[in-house]
């Protein structure tokens, strides 16, 4: 048993083990104590080691093949054919690296701003990290489901314990929404098990299925994934959850947990029920476009910064689902791969940008204890360095070329024009709407005369905050200037996926 053959296991279980250690040792309730500090450093060390290990995944990854790599498989519950079965391809590696990258940054961001039970807080994030990597690498339906459901627990605690005033309402709403969706996914898995005799997701993809069954399974999957993305109209849990979540929770929620929904569509819906996906593709495109236009308009009128960014997330995730479901509407020989590539790039990019935006709001919240736009004004006067970061991330959120925010949107808009002028038309409204709601917020928060005495007393970024936002800024720019490494990593997998899906099962 070597690290090279069990890299995925290491990535999953190292943070989970770290989480248990932190949880068991705990702290003495004093965030400033040496014990709490030791626990913080342990948490940081674990996440950094996990990140370094995940680089091994990138280094050893063969982008030339669509086959699963780093595969680990051993029987788990033999009587029902459940395996401990892990593996990654071009779709999962970028998301795993995103997870291992964001988590240490979240730990640093929460370093001394968490006063209540700090060790448990970091423990929850480590647990979450391991489970999220598990979702991105599980190839067995039951394993996938277990990771998927368990993920809710630490997030539930993060919002419920360290959240804001209405956290109970938000957590219940969050939990019920996502839990109800996932149960239907489990039912679909059990049905597929009946056909295949195992919970192997790759076997599911090969199983012949009639259109009727595909339609029902698609809807079951949709219930799980649409809520996670979230798609209009099952999106209303997200603004509430974000508003109540602590900064770190918002970052993980926006940057990674929403990606579970998108990942579910490409990992499960498209390959397992291609014809069901085809059948519902028009509906999916319409819902995606509603997310872009309707949610863009709603974001415009938000007064709570976190709510605004939450709505902006829903709009940006609309591009993800749009890119996935264009396939059947493109008549020419190319465009489908472009759409899915663009959607995947959009997921990674949105992870970085929304994460950074929530951190920016966190920086302000730590100082002023308000998320309300009218409480600010003229922040650039007292926090010029912070203002520069905020404007950069706002521009990235508005999809400015040269930042990562542009790459995915550009690819998806081009692909949607290949499908239909009007799909591209509504998708492209994001250029105006995205800029409008983001920059209007910037105008009211960052620019102008110093709004009030509390703004006048603000101090600029501390070293720790500068470091975290700086890393986000570099990544956002790097991906915008040279997205080729990311795109190349996914190409083979997506091409194979498109071929398989276009062929269908009928």
């Amino acid at each position, binding site marked *: 048993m070597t690290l090279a053959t069990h890299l995925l296991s290491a990535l999953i279980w190292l943070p989970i083990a770290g989480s248990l250690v932190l949880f068991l040792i705990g702290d003495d309730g004093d965030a400033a104590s040496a014990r709490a500090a030791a626990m913080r450093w342990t948490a940081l060390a674990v996440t950094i080691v996990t990140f370094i290990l995940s680089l091994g995944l990138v280094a050893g990854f063969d982008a030339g093949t669509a086959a699963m790599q780093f595969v680990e498989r051993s029987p788990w519950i033999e009587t029902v054919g459940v395996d401990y079965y892990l593996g990654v391809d071009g779709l999962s590696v970028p998301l795993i690296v995103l997870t291992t990258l964001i988590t240490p940054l979240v730990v640093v961001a929460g370093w001394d701003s968490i006063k209540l039970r700090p060790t448990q807080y970091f423990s929850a994030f480590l647990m979450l990290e391991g489970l999220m990597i598990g979702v991105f690498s599980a190839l067995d339906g039951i394993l996938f489901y277990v990771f998927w459901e368990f993920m809710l627990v630490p997030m539930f605690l993060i919002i419920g314990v360290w959240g804001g005033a209405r956290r109970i309402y938000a957590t219940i709403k969050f939990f019920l929404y996502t839990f109800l969706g996932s149960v239907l996914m489990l039912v679909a898995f059990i049905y597929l098990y009946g056909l295949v005799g195992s919970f192997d997701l790759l076997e599911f993809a090969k199983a012949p299925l009639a259109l009727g069954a595909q339609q029902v399974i698609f809807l079951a999957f949709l219930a799980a994934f649409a809520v996670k993305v979230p798609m209009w109209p099952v999106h209303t849990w997200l603004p509430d959850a974000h508003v109540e979540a602590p900064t770190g929770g918002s970052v993980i929620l926006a940057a990674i947990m929403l990606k579970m929904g998108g990942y579910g569509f490409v990992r499960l819906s498209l390959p397992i029920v291609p014809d069901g996906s085809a059948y519902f593709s028009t509906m999916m495109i319409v819902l995606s476009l509603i997310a872009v236009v309707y949610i863009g308009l709603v974001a415009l009128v938000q007064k709570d910064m976190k709510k605004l960014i939450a709505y902006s997330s829903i709009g940006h995730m609309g591009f993800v689902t749009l890119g996935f479901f264009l396939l059947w509407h493109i008549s020419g020989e190319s465009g489908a791969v472009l759409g899915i590539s663009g959607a995947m790039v959009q997921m990674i990019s949105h992870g970085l940008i929304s994460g950074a935006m929530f951190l920016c709001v966190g920086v302000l919240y730590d100082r002023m204890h308000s998320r309300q736009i009218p409480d600010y004004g003229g922040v650039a006067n007292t926090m010029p360095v912070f203002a520069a970061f905020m404007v950069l991330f706002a521009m990235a959120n508005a999809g400015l070329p040269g930042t990562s925010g542009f790459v995915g949107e550009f690819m998806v808009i*081009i692909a949607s024009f290949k499908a239909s002028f009007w799909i591209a038309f509504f998708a492209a409204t994001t250029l105006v709407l995205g800029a409008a709601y983001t920059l209007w917020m910037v105008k009211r928060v960052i620019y*102008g005369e110093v709004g009030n005495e509390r703004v006048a007393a603000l101090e600029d970024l501390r070293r720790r905050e500068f470091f975290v936002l700086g890393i986000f800024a570099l990544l956002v720019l790097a991906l915008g200037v040279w997205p080729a490494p990311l795109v190349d990593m996914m190409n083979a997998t997506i091409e194979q996926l498109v071929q398989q899906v276009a062929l269908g099962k009928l």
Partner: protein
Amino acid sequence: MLHYYLIIVLAPLLAAVLAGLFGRQIGRVGAHTVTILGVGIAFVLSALVLYQLYWAGASPENLSVYTWAVTDGLRMEVGFLVDRLTALMMVVVTFVSLMVHVYTIGYMHDDPGYQRFFSFISLFTFAMLMLVMSNNFLQLFFGWEAVGLVSYLLIGFWFRKESAIFANLKAFLVNRVGDFGFILGISGVVLLTNSLDYAEVFGQAGTMAQQTIEVIPGTPWNAMTVVCILLFIGAMGKSAQAPLHVWLPDSMEGPTPISALIHAATMVTAGIFMVARMSPLYEYTETALAVVMTIGAITAFFMGLLGLVQNDIKRVVAYSTLSQLGYMTVALGASAYGAAIFHLMTHAFFKALLFLAAGSVIIAMHHEQDIRKMGGIRQYMPITYWTSLIGSLALIGFPGFSGFFSKDLLIEAVRESHWQGQGAVYWVAYLSVLLGVFVTALYSFRMFFLVFHGKERMDEETRSHLHETPWVVTLPLIMLAIPSVIIGWITVQPVLFGDFFGDAIVVTGKHDVLASMGAHWHGSLALVTHAVMTPVFWLAAAGVFTAWFLYLKRPDLPETIHGKFKGLYVLLDRKYYFDDLWIKGFAGGGRRLGQALWRFGDEIVIDGFIVNGTANSIGRLAAILRQLQSGYLYTYAFAMIIGLTMLLGWLIWLQ
């Protein structure tokens, strides 16, 4: 030559990064030294590139720098296409930028954001060079949006000023409306050719023109027409053509050096450059050209009229810029791309000059911009006075000055564009550019007389401090005045009639008005001496005379005229109500719609009715079901098994 090109774009970028990130360490002198050095290097090398291409007979180059991404057979690259059209733009951009850098030392002398300002204008130079040097649509769009970003940052440079941060948001959003069309146009190009590379796309222009796109289902439109109009919507945003012009006058909230560089000489001409660059596409669609011509004509004439009622010195120049951009657009529509680019070049020099001269006046007047509070400044500021006169004469097209050659021949080209069929479009365009000459002369000299001649209307305090501005300000004025006088003389022959552009601009046979004009071309001198016989000259002269009569001879008359034509005055003063349309109509409407969707859609229907409604019904249901609760685990397990079996049975039955 790749190394040269890389240095040309990267020198200003590096300087911008240094001045921006390390402004505090390198100080004020360090910031302006490093940025002037960067832009200076870019200018010298650009001049060298132009020399190589024109005099030394080097051939155009099309190079790829690196691959941005490849997927689905679509290559997205970063690369340079450097031909004479590009080289001309590079020289104009870097020269004006260099002048503005020097000028800024004086203009921003006391500003606490000194380093930041230098960083931004260098960054702008980088972005603009990326735009004009691009060999593909992706990089074009990058440059396009990047100049928009810097424009946003610079209009809002004084971010404490409410009017400035309103103006920069407005500028960015209105430009985004244009970019909305632009990105759809680029997508259309990819749909038709599966490429973003200029050379490949232009190579397929013939087949593109034979395809159709159904924007309205069941009505096939020529694909080339659709694509070209969409691309032109982008140009309308960037080059401020009606009705997307509303951002440009407000952009004057930014410091004057950037009004000269970005909002007069370079960025706003990006749209003109883009259409000229795309001439191999536009030549296939007379419908799109007619649209271009009409929009340009409307802008040229009606925006000029607005210049007549402005009292802010910078806004008068801004409306004049709008009008001149309209002239260039009309020339594009007439397929006289060369004439448009020629006017773009001369305009870059004299309009930058006019802005910087206005800035010089503003410095001397202690940041007073209202021309009603000026007058008689001539004697205090001789250099500013004479260079302003040169700029104004060039603008109105006085024979011999650079604007004369470009505007006179532009109007001539429009008159000759008979291929349009001499219908309504032709006459609207021709009359607009012709009457525009009178309007241009009138507003230019109205401002000139009000500022430099007549009664001294400023307060005593200001008057006692009036004196010529320092050399860093006046040197760029003189350096820009020189080309404003001579550039027309020496370049008109090669640029318009001497095949300067070669293959960079494509004009098909019957559209080629410049070629037919070339048959009657007898040199610059002949054109100047014959100027008195053209209506253009007399219209300009009439404009200057009217301005003199109204504002120097009988300064009481304008008031009377205002009184007589109150309705017209209000219409002009309200800028034809375009601002109301955008701000109240679109921005306000969008907010109201967003509010309605949020309050009604999200909160009442989805959350109130569906989510919480469901939760409440479940609560009531639970009250009933509670009766079934036994507390024994096997009861629950049994119920679950029954439930699952039923669900699975249903699924199997479906199969």
